[in-house]
């Protein structure tokens, strides 16, 4: 299992993790070991086997379309790192120039 540094950086970017170079290097090795271990799965004969996405084979129970009280705005925002005008506040979403 060979993972390039670029691949590891790309995964970190997808996962929104700002990793230092040394962390990327360490992860590159650790991921390779784990993925190599995981490659054993290729030896299992799974032809025609339905993937088991749920431990219990049931159908989804449905909820009646009934409204329950919402959380008060103050509670919804209580733990927000930043809030303004009843909203969660985040840094500007800078659009990449083209």
């Amino acid at each position: 299992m060979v993972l390039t540094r670029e691949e590891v950086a790309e995964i970190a970017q997808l996962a929104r993790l700002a990793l230092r170079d040394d962390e990327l290097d360490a992860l590159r090795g650790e991921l390779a070991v784990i993925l190599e271990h995981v490659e054993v799965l290729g030896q299992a004969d799974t032809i025609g086997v339905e993937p088991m996405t749920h431990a219990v084979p049931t159908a989804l129970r449905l909820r009646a379309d009934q409204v329950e009280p919402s959380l008060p705005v103050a509670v919804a925002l209580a733990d927000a790192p930043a809030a303004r005008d009843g909203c969660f506040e985040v840094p500007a979403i800078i659009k990449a120039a083209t």
Partner: protein
Amino acid sequence: MSDLATLLESWEPVIGLEVHVQLACESKAFSPSATSFGAPPNSLTDPTVLGLPGALPTFNAHALELALRLGVATGAKIRARCRFARKHYFYPDLPKGYQISQYDEPLCEEGGIELWLGGVRKKVRLQRIHLEEDAGKNLHHGTASLVDLNRAGVPLCEVVTLPDLHSAEEAAEYMRALHRLVRWLGVGEGDMEKGQLRCDANVSVRRRGEDRLGVRTELKNINSFRFVHRAIEHEIARQVRILEDGGQVERETRLWDADAGVSQPMRSKEEIADYRYFPDPDLPPLAVDGPTMRKVITTMPELPVPRLERFMREYGLPFDDAALLTDDRERADYLDEAVRAAGDGALARPIASFMLTELLRVLDGQPIAKAPVAPAALAELIALVAGEVISGKIAKDVFAKMCASGEGAQHIVDRDDLRQISDEATLRGLCEELLAAHPRQVEQYRAGKDSLLGFFVGQLMKATGGKANPALSTKLLEQLLAAT
């Protein structure tokens, strides 16, 4: 832009639409907070909507039923067991970091939406209809953005067409047909201004005669019927111009800016879009059971296009009238009910034209549910006209009185003595009096001024308060004037 028409002789636009339809549910798709419009920011949340640690989704039965209605109405294949999947991306209006949507096992596949285009009936084929939740709203605010999660979790279905549309007009007509269908079925209110119907368009162009599709762009944020046409036309023109200049269209997502009337690229090209779909482990497969399916099928109304065609066939309405009267289901129902009450199919046409003129004028843009006169009452009025009890002109006055008082047509006619004078002897006498009173005009008429007939008819109407039978009066006046 004026040369676009010319250019389109050699370039063919290919358009597919992805329309998000808000389902008419009281509560959210996966949790019980309300879906009301216009509530204060972040006042419609719960642990699930906020994506709080430990919170889980549960699915709204009504959302399923509404999506099924749309699926059955479009003749789609309904999957007996469909599945929810997680679609991952990071954005502040997406609380969990993923949207619960459907991926490779959507609720509905194939089917189509029928529409009339320039007098031709066309079926726009659907690829799929799937269930998903809406995101919240980001309000840009200088160096910061503000996030309101009231919309987050609102139940949607996404209706995706095949690339079957070939002009901005067709796309706009498709949107109107879908809008009509959604409202017709009670699936949603379809108010674009409230974001209840939102359109993304995949647009490409290719040389006419070519089989291969050109590079497409995805246009987002088209949020009014007017903009569907404008945004797509703008994009077609942009692509044709690039290709005419020997350039290449870039595969990208563009955001329609309605104020500027242009589109702008949305994401940077280096950013990787990888949604990492996988079946949502919090939600077992969604099974469509027999009773639910039966309910949807047995309550399915006659759909807009077949109804329009029936109105033309059975009622003899011209296309434009039939189209107007099937623009919404309540209008069409009104007509059918009035015809049924009249008990005479021959009255359908006069009822329809009275609806399109007088009734719509009185309603002044309000829905037909607000009509001050019930279908049966209108039928009674039109029957009086048809039976020559009152004239069409008097009918308008009677209608005004009906609107004002809620009284029945026959009652008003009797009480106010509005019956048409159709007795020939009486009318003849009145006509003779009239001619005697206007010798000069009689002279002129007889000298060849035929147009004065209208003057006499008008005078007669004036004298009788409009009650003289117009056809008979005209006939008698003609006879008397010709007599000497």
